[in-house]
């Protein structure tokens, strides 16, 4: 079981309260698709992903970004049991979607970068550290049901 300090919980929830879930989800996913273009392999049904402008304007990318961030909200609501919360999602990513877990790490890093861009100096080192820990926990939970 993951141990969270009160400061870490506070850092995560206070940042989360300020996030526009649809916008940040969109930014983060669009960045992943541009910075790591091989990740586009999982989105062959999304239509035009041919350049950064197309990706930024793609409505399916926006919708999926929101979906991903909504799921992150789930983890944040259940910080003391992310593994159980994500059991079905982990199974889905392994058995149906066949997503390489390395992608969870890439999305986690990119989300942190997106948060830094949005919050600037308010995204202090301590807050970043709490979010890095959250990304590690989420990545581990999503990878757990892989076999």
């Amino acid at each position, binding site marked *: 079981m993951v141990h969270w300090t009160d400061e870490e919980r506070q850092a995560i929830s206070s940042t989360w309260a300020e996030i526009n879930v649809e916008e940040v989800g969109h930014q983060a996913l669009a960045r992943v698709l541009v910075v790591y273009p091989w990740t586009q392999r999982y989105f062959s049904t999304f239509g035009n992903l041919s350049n950064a402008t197309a990706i930024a304007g793609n409505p399916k990318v926006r919708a999926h970004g929101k979906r991903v961030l909504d799921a992150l909200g789930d983890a944040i609501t259940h910080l003391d049991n992310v593994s159980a919360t994500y059991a079905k999602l982990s199974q889905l990513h392994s058995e149906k979607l066949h997503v390489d877990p390395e992608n969870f790490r890439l999305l986690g890093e990119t989300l942190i970068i997106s948060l830094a861009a949005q919050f600037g100096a308010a995204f202090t080192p301590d807050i970043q*550290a709490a979010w890095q820990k959250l990304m590690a926990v989420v990545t581990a939970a999503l990878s757990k049901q892989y076999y």
Partner: protein
Amino acid sequence: MPLTDADKKHVKSIWSKASGKAEELGAQALGRMLDAFPNTKTYFSHYSDLSVESGQVHVHGKKIFDALTDAVNHIDDITGAMSALSTKHAHTLRVDPANFKVLSHTILVVLALYFPADFTPEVHLACDKFLAEVSYALAEKYR
């Protein structure tokens, strides 16, 4: 994944803003790495203060950023520009090269934080590739 002409242009453009704040940005990148990734502290056991505000972190952060500016100014020969530093990291410092990725990440975080409008996805991509090349050049002399 070599740097394209567009990549080089993007890196030089954002670095023209970053190089003027070398100490602040370097301290932030280094301090954030030490804070969020405690394993990296093992290389700084001789520091009394590992926070972003620490004088030691400021001095060292500036060193790191100035070296990166050097790499940007010699972007067509990063291996050559990093040669002496590679020798130092390989034989004296012996930092495990896996850590170059960690510092690269916090450098990207800091660039996004300070220059959100400039740090577009394409610039992010270019900087990620640039830092990967620098990391590779730094590891060249290891074995």
